[in-house]
């Protein structure tokens, strides 16, 4: 266990350092929420006049949705770095050391969670600047960050698992594109649940992205903490499931060598 934690942390430092060395990543991370929130916020501003949204501004409705959407896309590409490591021989070099096997994947999942945390923080702050209110207070703020990090960890593990099974960037891109947008639109990220077609509502119930959006929105309102707890528990289950998938994929990868 001690080697697992220490290896994970050392590898995490490597991943974070790499990320911070890509200036374009930092720029996009800062600019993207601005674009999402202003663009969608303006375009759909009057949607909240429909019955079913309650008395909220659209920016307040949208902010948790954009936090979760960014968490999804920020983490779903996590497997790309792993594929680079496979192709460059970095993974082989590490597998020939006594390094803890689980740490090699855990560090990537943790890295995704940390970057999602930073991105969510920026979006939340910008949302507040644009006029969203946060009745849930500081507790809500921290809860939303936690929810985004959980979602990010779950999708990162999924992405790394797919990367280990396919070992091709093209395949991973196809898989992530296939899941990414539908999962976003099969959730309440942009539209209130009561206004969804019923079949979308049914699918949304088993969609981790929807759990994240609902949890973040409830936390923001600060009224339904029980619902926040349930959805966070579901997300924790999702993280366990995808982590199990990733570790099995890693075993398959090592056995095929």
């Amino acid at each position, binding site marked *: 266990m001690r080697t697992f934690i220490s290896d994970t942390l050392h590898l995490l430092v490597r991943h974070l350092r*790499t990320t911070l060395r890509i200036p374009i990543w930092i720029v996009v991370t800062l600019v993207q929420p601005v674009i999402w929130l202003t663009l969608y916020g303006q375009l759909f501003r009057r949607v909240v006049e429909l019955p079913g949204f309650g008395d909220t501004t659209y920016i307040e409705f949208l902010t948790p949705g954009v936090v979760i959407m960014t968490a999804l896309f920020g983490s779903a590409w996590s497997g790309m770095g792993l594929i680079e490591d496979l192709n460059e021989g*970095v993974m082989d070099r590490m597998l020939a050391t*006594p390094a803890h096997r689980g740490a090699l994947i855990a560090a990537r999942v943790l890295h995704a969670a940390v970057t999602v945390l930073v991105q969510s923080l920026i979006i939340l702050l910008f949302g507040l600047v644009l006029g969203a209110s946060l009745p849930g207070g500081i507790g809500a703020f921290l809860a939303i960050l936690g929810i985004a990090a959980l979602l990010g960890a779950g999708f990162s593990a999924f992405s790394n698992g797919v990367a280990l099974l396919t070992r091709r960037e093209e395949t991973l891109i196809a898989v992530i594109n296939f899941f990414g947008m539908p999962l976003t639109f099969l959730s309440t990220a942009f539209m209130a649940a009561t206004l969804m077609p019923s079949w979308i509502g049914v699918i949304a119930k088993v969609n981790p992205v929807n759990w994240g959006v609902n949890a973040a929105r409830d936390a923001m309102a600060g009224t339904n903490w029980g619902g926040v707890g349930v959805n966070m528990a579901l997300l924790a289950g999702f993280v366990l499931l995808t982590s199990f998938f990733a570790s099995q994929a890693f075993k398959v990868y090592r056995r095929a*060598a």
Partner: protein
Amino acid sequence: MNAIVVDHLCKTYRNGVDAVTDVSFTVSAGEIFGLLGPNGAGKSTTVRMLATLSVPSGGSAQVAGRDVESDAAGVRRRIGYVAQASGVDRHGTGRENLTLQAHLERVPKRDIAGRVGSLLEWIGLTEAADRLVNTYSGGMKRRLDIAMGLVHEPEVLYLDEPTTGLDPETRSALWADLKRIRQERKLTVLLTTHYLEEADQLCDRVAIIDRGRVVIEGVPSDLKAKIEGDSVTLNVEGRTSEGASVLRTMEEVLEVIEDGDSIVARVAHGATAVPALITALERAGIGVNAVTLSRPSLDDVYLHYTGHRFTSNGMAEQNHQAPANRRGGDQR
């Protein structure tokens, strides 16, 4: 004491490719041992099995007294593995790469900074230590690779094609480095190469590996001694076997091998023998299209021990060696 014992090792990939069919050899502690063979002969696969990266399909191997299958963790602690496909993190600096490697190799924390510093100095990368590896030249990157394999002072170091892809100057500089390792550190080195010259320069003993099998094991000078003289390759218009038997009767010819449209004759002095060889063939009514004269090369060693050239089948075998992105860069 034996540092590496390989006993009838074989490896069949899931797609049915026999990468290694029967490899056995023994490496004594402190020796530099070369696995010599063309691309696709099974060298990298053998090393990957000895580095616990690939599970053997049959046979057994012990490294530093530990079994690669039943005690993989024990083997990993005692080996340094420098793959052909570098394996350094291009987005990190030399120092960061070495430091992370030291952590993963369980070097005691208090020793890491000091050891990384002295290794960087030892490979002449002190000034470039804090630059991204992306900016390194091929030779610098290779020296960093090797330093990373040494950071935990392993008992056995694997070098898979250490000089492939390097220019001749860098290659001979690296040879000097490897000789220095041998002098300064007590360790056993297993290196793979497809350069006879490299095996000759660096290795105490070599095993020649062809199509997944060890065909001969020995001291390089002995192997070369058996391939004395020059090789004359005669490209003829058909009837090669008839031509070969004509040449076999000639006194100055040491060995004759048929190879497709060509007859390869080994003779003591190529320049003087060529006219006689051509005359003999033409007298038998066999026209000669082209003649090539060469000093003994790996090709000839191969030809001698396997009866075929490695260039052609080496290329063919390259295509089905291992799953696409796993082969550790055999064709880089």
